[in-house]
């Protein structure tokens, strides 16, 4: 693994944050949101701010931009110095002048950060209008120039496009162009690649690095992904509960973390080395899918569009107690497959066999008795539980449907909560009283309550912090051993797939391009797409959990 090793000792600083304290407005007794945060960014340096959700990463960046939500958060102490001026003391007008000229920011969601009804060229031009006076011709020339610099293809066409006509990666490039057109000294990137696919992420990261090189911009990069940190950081600051617990050059931090919290954080990063292969059980197949196809759109009276093949010719099967992973980027059809198997959408063609029964063509009513054999856990734990229902009521919904009596179901619900590691008095509480990880445990318990043969986990750990992610993966593994369920694990994250899957199916454009054991797919990928996916995984040569290079066996 090649880390950035450039020394910044004799380079002039760009921004210095000293003892920044941010509190909830009008509440001096609550613990501060940021507690004496200090950091320094020098010319051309990339400083990574890592931490789990709620650690104060984004609040730090918003304070620097002067964008703290009014009336909710206030900076009560410390200094933010840029060019010997304290940004905290600047008035709104002076601060507006600073933005884009001296500091600019790119956000996580390029779709919501761009105005959907203005052409992207005009949106970039707007930055120039606000801060400079340029004749129209020169303005357009500068916009096209910066669009070329961020490597957008066919810039004249994209100049006239609306955000929805561009891909996620292109939109993020537009955001970067907007941020850099006035050559600011500092670029703040708040999780800029989290919403992107790995291959796109890789391109955006190298683009930021390249522009940083040519313009000498300092970058404050906020992320939760240790892989990204290993790829791009010069210096890393680890945040926890509003405090910076440790900061060091990237290689030092990854090799010799000093703080217990940093060690924990690194140890919970799943490794790309596949799990030890498990013995095939003799119990036989519980779910088999053959020739599955789903076509969207097509015929209407007035509309004649090319139908979209979300999935075609998908075949696989899972045996009892085994885990099959479906890996692919967004739009590869992996979720469509999951939803077809659950019959949340009706497959266009193909067979799905569950409990020795073909279910792909059953009517909704005929299907209901077979629902219990296959259950699903969704990605977003905040939306997958009815906010108006107590945990207990959610847990017994399924069992009541298959005729369990209420007392028995409630008793079982309490047992299930213990099984997934929650207190059994949680039955009387509401989802909003729990954290994301706890809610995901409840969602798993709800699925397990039906005693299914197959559990479909649709990106079930993607919305969780790494440490919580590791716990939920452990839970799934433990449940599998206790109950012998088969798991169909859908994910975009190869690391997670490596940790939990026996077999991996790689999907692209609705087709399976590779299907093999997890060890073979990761160590010896056959299809070019699989290879591209593995190569794009950030920090893949580093074994985070053991603080050293990955040992190739």
């Amino acid at each position: 693994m090649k880390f950035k090793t450039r020394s910044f000792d004799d380079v002039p600083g760009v921004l210095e944050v000293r003892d920044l304290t941010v509190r909830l407005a009008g509440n001096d007794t609550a613990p501060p949101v940021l507690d004496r945060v200090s950091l320094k960014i020098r010319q051309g340096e990339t400083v990574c701010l890592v931490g789990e959700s709620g650690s104060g990463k984004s609040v730090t960046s918003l304070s620097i931009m002067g964008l703290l939500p009014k009336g909710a958060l206030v900076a009560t102490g410390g200094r933010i110095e840029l060019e010997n001026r304290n940004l905290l003391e600047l008035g709104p007008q002076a601060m507006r002048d600073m933005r884009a000229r001296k500091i600019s920011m790119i956000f996580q969601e390029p779709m919501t950060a761009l105005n959907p009804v203005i052409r992207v060229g005009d949106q970039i031009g707007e930055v120039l209008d606000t801060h400079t006076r340029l004749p129209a011709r020169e303005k357009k020339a500068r916009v096209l120039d910066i669009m070329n610099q961020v490597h957008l293809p066919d810039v004249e066409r994209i100049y006239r496009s609306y955000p929805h006509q561009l891909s996620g990666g292109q939109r993020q490039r537009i955001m970067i162009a907007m941020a850099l057109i006035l050559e600011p000294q500092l670029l703040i990137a708040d999780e800029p690649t989290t919403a992107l696919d790995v291959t796109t992420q890789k391109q955006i990261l190298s683009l930021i690095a390249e522009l940083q090189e040519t313009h000498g911009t300092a970058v404050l990069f906020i992320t939760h992904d240790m892989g990204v940190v290993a790829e791009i950081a010069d210096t890393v600051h680890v945040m926890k509960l509003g405090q910076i617990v440790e900061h060091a050059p990237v290689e030092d931090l990854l090799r010799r973390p000093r703080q217990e919290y940093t060690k924990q954080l690194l140890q919970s990063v799943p490794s790309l080395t596949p799990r030890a292969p498990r013995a095939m059980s003799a119990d036989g197949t519980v779910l088999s899918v053959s020739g599955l196809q789903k076509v969207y759109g097509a015929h209407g009276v007035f509309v004649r569009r090319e139908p979209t093949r979300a999935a075609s010719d998908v075949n696989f099967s899972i045996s009892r107690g085994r885990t099959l992973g479906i890996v692919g980027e967004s739009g590869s059809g992996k979720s469509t497959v999951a939803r077809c198997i659950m019959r949340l959408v009706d497959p266009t063609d193909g067979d799905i066999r569950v409990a020795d029964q073909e279910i792909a063509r059953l009517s909704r009513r005929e299907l209901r008795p077979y629902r219990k054999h296959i259950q699903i856990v969704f990605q977003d734990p905040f939306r997958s539980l009815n906010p108006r229902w107590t945990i207990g009521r959610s847990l017994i919904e399924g069992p009541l449907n298959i005729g369990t009596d209420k007392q028995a179901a409630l008793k079982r619900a309490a047992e299930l909560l213990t099984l997934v590691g929650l207190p059994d008095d949680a039955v009387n509480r509401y989802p909003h009283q729990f954290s994301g990880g706890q809610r995901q445990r409840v969602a798993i318990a709800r699925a397990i309550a039906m005693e299914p043969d197959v559990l479909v986990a649709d990106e079930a750990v993607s919305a969780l912090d790494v440490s919580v992610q590791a716990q939920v993966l452990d839970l799934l593994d433990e449940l599998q051993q206790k109950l012998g369920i088969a798991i169909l694990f859908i994910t975009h994250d190869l690391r997670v797939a490596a940790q939990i899957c026996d077999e991996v199916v790689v999907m692209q454009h609705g087709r399976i391009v590779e299907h093999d054991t997890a060890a073979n797919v990761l160590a010896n990928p056959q299809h070019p797409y699989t290879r591209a996916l593995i190569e794009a995984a950030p920090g893949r040569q580093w074994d985070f959990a053991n603080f050293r290079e990955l040992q190739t066996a």
Partner: protein
Amino acid sequence: MAASPQPAARLQWLFGAIAVPRGWRAGAGPIIAAIVLFVIVFLALAAPLIVPHDPLAMDAVQRLKGPSDVHPLGTDAYGRDVLSRVITGGRISLFIGLGAAVVSVMIGLMIGLVSGFFRTADAIIMRIMDSLMAIPSILLAIALVALNGPSIWSVMGAITIPEIPRVVRLVRSVVLSAREEPYVEAAIALGSSMPKILWQHLMPNTLAPLIVQGTYICASAILTEAILSFLGAGVSTEIPTWGNIMAEGRIYFQLKPSLIFWPGLMLSLCILSINLLGDTARDMLDPRLKKREA
């Protein structure tokens, strides 16, 4: 924060994640509106007990008299006591307003739930609703009264039917977005039956907007009833309603404007208060408002 978890839990059930913003306080307007409405409703309910005279008793000697000790607001062309008639008139107006709101919300809720959840039913139901929306309520009322004779029920039907499509559209839009929620899909996967999902998972989402819509329907129904009575297409003239009283007073408007003024004042106050309360409910229950405050 929550001293007693029970009521908080009930609010949670009714409004879901959209709780009333913390620190939200009603201004003077809504409080005055609530008091005014309370007084009007109280007077209407207690009318038979508190009116000084029989609202229907005619007295040929006392025609078109001004305010006096016996008749505080004077008398009309038949010598009937205006105060008693205005108080009694509120009974029918409020009954029709409330009735139209409750009936149209009930029917609209049922149709809207089905329409939002089942695609095939949706296509058919929404076309029917579109055609219902094209019927002007006053024309429908005249037709119904012509068919069935003037009665409270024809008037209420005429007001309710054109309101139903509006409720259906509202409920349908809420259901359309709520059915995409993973917890609804999880319920499908758990094998819950469609009626159960509709009623237990989706219906509670519609309650907050329906409460707001209901107040507007109530206000507009009271107004429509008054218009119909004024036009002579409403409730039969023997029963005093605000519209009837004004219609009869119209002839003597130049001679004695108070015959129109008092029922008109009651009508305006009543509608103003209901609308004000509706706006307040909307502010309280609107999730966007909460976000703005955060």
